[in-house]
Every structure is written in C-alpha cells, then in structure tokens.
C-alpha cells in the first residue's frame, strides 16, 4: 500500500464500446509518468479517471489506498492543452483563485491581511514559473507558452498530490517547448510532485518521465473494432537523467 495511486482491474465502457480493459497499475509518489499511445487508445479516458471526471465501469481506483471519489478536487491539479486559465482574471488573480476557493467559501474572495498573505504566496509561485513581471497581464495578452506557465502556477498553488498534464506543450513552438520541459522538471523536483503526463511526443515522454506507459489494444477484431479495449501494453521504468537538455528555465 505504498503506491499513491492504484488501479485495480479497471474497465471503462460506453454501452458496448470498451475503451479501457483490465488496467492494473500502481503509481508511486514522486514519479513522473508519461503516457503515450495512438489516438483512441484510451489515454484521455485514463486521464479522466485520474481526474475524477469519470468513474470506472468496473474495478476501482485508489488514492492513498482509499477509493477515489468520481469528482474533481484540489488533491489533483490539471493543465490542459488549452483553456486552462480563466480569461477574465489577470495572472495574479488566476493563481490567487485556488487560495480564494479554499479560504473564502461564501464570497469566493479574500480581503485585507488574508489577501496580502495569499498574494505573497502567489508572487512566489509566479516567480517560480518566471511570470512575476507579468502579474497584471490578462491571458489573452499572453503567448501560448506564458499561458501554460500560468496554468502550471495556478495548478500548483493548491499543492495537489498529483499533477495531471494533458498534452500541455502540444500547441507550443519547439524552442518554447524545451524551456517548458526544463521548467516542469525543475518544479517536479522542487515541489516533489507526482506527475502524470499524456503526450503525443514520444521524445518528450522519454525525456521527462521516470516511467513511460504505452496504451494500446492487445487484441483487435477488424469486424468490431470497439469490442476490445486498450490497456497499458508497455511499462518502462527509466533511470532518470540528471538534467534535461536545453536551457534551464529562467
């Protein structure tokens, strides 16, 4: 029971369409798990399970040994490829949002000394992702890379147990992507995070992960392609490289 997150014979079915079958996995605290696989192999379904957006049709998902509630909560943070930040708030207020949700159940806003204390924490987090000088900027005025940095800062402020990344760098330029790799590696170390990242980029999966999972269908019926679901076909543990190539994040 040392695993942070366990999958016990998990199935996901929609009607008679089977998406995931017999998924049995343990994910240790502090690991960086990359998930790759062809489109339609259930990567997104797997992520939705961990996020709590969906419940398994069969089997169970355990978080710290306890069955996980099928609802999103602050113990699991997420960064999507797009739409991860709130467009009507500037960078500081975007990061502050998580603290305000926890600290002000009724008004949803912090005031006075509590707000000042929270903002100090926010600025430290913005500094960690290199956005301190852009605190008053709205997401629409930011580049794609800045928006993803903001999304990461916003997710980390609530100190989630698990950080989920859903193709977080897929829409970024190659150069920016390198910087983001360095950034996420540094944050993963500094905050001792457990990261689960879905990606299309196999190079990225191996460069960042301590463990790479590939999802695919083991069996395939050409007459009924939905008859069999995907599962983790390869599970590769990696000796973690000491430093990701490319420039360190500023």
């Amino acid at each position, binding site marked *: 029971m040392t695993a942070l997150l366990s999958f016990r014979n998990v199935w996901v079915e929609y009607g008679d369409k089977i998406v995931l079958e017999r998924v049995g996995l343990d994910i240790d605290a502090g690991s960086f798990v990359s998930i790759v696989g062809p489109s339609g192999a259930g990567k997104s379904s797997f992520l939705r399970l961990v*996020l709590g*957006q969906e419940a398994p049709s069969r089997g169970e998902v355990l978080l710290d040994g306890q069955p996980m509630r099928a*609802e*999103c*909560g*602050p113990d*699991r*943070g*997420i960064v*999507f490829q*797009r*739409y*991860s*930040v*709130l*467009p*009507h*708030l500037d960078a500081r207020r975007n990061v502050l*949002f*998580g603290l*305000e*949700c*926890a600290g002000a*159940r*009724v008004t*949803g*806003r912090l005031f006075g000394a509590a707000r000042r204390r929270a903002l100090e924490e926010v600025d430290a987090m913005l500094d960690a992702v290199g956005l301190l000088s852009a605190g008053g900027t*709205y*997401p*629409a*005025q930011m580049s794609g890379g800045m928006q993803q940095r903001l*999304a990461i800062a*916003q*997710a980390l*402020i*609530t100190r*989630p147990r698990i950080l989920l990344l859903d193709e977080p760098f897929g829409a970024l330029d190659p150069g920016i992507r390198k910087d983001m790799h360095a950034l996420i590696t540094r944050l993963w170390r500094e905050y001792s995070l457990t990261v689960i990242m879905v990606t299309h980029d196999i190079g990225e999966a191996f460069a960042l992960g301590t463990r790479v999972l590939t999802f695919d269908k083991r069996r395939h019926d050409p007459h009924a392609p939905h008859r069999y679901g995907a599962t983790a076909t390869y599970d590769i543990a990696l000796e973690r490289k000491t430093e990701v190539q490319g420039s360190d994040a500023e």
Partner: protein
Amino acid sequence: MRLVNIRPGRATSLVLGILPVAALVFVYVLASASRHAINPGDRILPTPAAMVSAMHTLMFVPDPMTGRLTLWADTLASLQRLCLGLAISTLSALIVGLALGLVPLVRALFGPLVTIIALIPPIALLPILFIMFGLGETAKVMLIIIGILPVMIRDVAAHVETLPTEQMLKAQTLGASSWQLAIRVALPQMMPRLIHALRLALGPAWVFLISAEAIAADIGLGYRIFLVRRYLAMDIILPYVAWIALLAIALDWLLRLANRRLFPWAGSS
C-alpha cells in the same frame, strides 16, 4: 483597382455616412415646400419651421390642462417604464440564465418552460396583462419584461453553456464549489454577454413600450404620438419619432461604452 478593395479613410467614411442622411432631409424639405406651395394648410409634410414651433410649445409651454411640460413629462414617464422593465429583465436574466447555463438539473427543469414562453408573441399576452394588472404602470412594465426576458435568458444561458469544459474542470481542481464556480467563473464571463443581450433587447423593448402606451395610457411618448395622430399632427409626430430614435441611440451607446469600460478583457479574445 477592384471596387471591393477600395477602403475609405476616416474622413471619407464620415462624409459618405452623412451623405444619404443629408439627401433624405433635402428631399423632405423639397417635398414639403412643394406641397405647401400648392396648399399652405398642408398637414402631411409639415415644414421644419412648423415642427420647431410645435415642439417649442411642447417643450417650454406648460400644458393648460395638466400644467406639465408635455415633452419632458412624456419622456420621463416612458423612460421610467422602459428602464424599470429593462432593469428587472436584466437582473432576472442574470440569475435565471446563470442557473440554467451552469446547473444541468435546473436546465432540465426550467429549460423547456423558458423555450415555450419565448415562443408566445408577447403582444398576444397584453390583454391578459391588462386584466391581471389593470391599466396602470405594472401592465406596461410587465409587457416589456415578458417581451424581452425569455430571449435574454436563452442567450445568456447558451453563452454560459459554451464556456469550455476544461475551464470548469480546472476551477474544480482548484477547489471551487458550485457556488464559487457560479460567482467567480461563470458570472464574470457572462456579464459582457448580458450587456450585449440587453443592447439587442433595446429595440423590442421600445416596441412593447410604445404598443402598451398606444393602447392604454394617459402620458408617455407612445401615447402622445397615437393621440395626436387623430389630428394628423405630423408636426408633432415626426419630431417625437426622431426624439425616440435619439433616446434609443443614446441608451445603446451608453451600454456599449459600459461594456468596453467594465470588461476590457472580453474584447481581445
């Protein structure tokens, strides 16, 4: 150069925009003058001078019966009804639209009802309103509300529904409750759309106001033009219509300004 590629500059656009309006005024003055040359007592196309003198009386000379300055009293009464109707509609659309757009249970419960009400022609309900609320202010304000509220609710609710799922999920992973999702995520992003819906509702709101006033009122802009119609008083009707248009334009402009000032983040995305 192709016609579709010729883009007028600022000054040219202004001149071009004024041109048709000026032409219309010119044609009117010409037609009015020619009618008056044949029949000096013509009432159908009054001269500008006749309109000015008629309006001067309504603006500055107290009415012998009521002691009020007619134009201002009419304007005040009409704007009061209009603004009350708009305010109640906007507030209701905010609450109901937010609940409908955000909470699937509420949508399942009230969505069909709102759709049905939106499909009833509001004027057809006017007799019912007069019977229920009498001929006073309430019925007129209610007509405006019934006329514009369902459309506003549907518009705003649809906008809330189209907010990206990712955003809602992200906010939930940050610990937001349903209430916090409503007031911190959905509501602020809905506000520009609400103001926009209000702007679009201004036109119908004026229609319902004038209709209600035409049928049963003793004061108001709509009441006045339908009253003086009996005397073919085009010298009053035309300036009144122009004044109503001016008020409508001013309200629209104010709302557009408010949207730009209050929600600067909404423009660029």
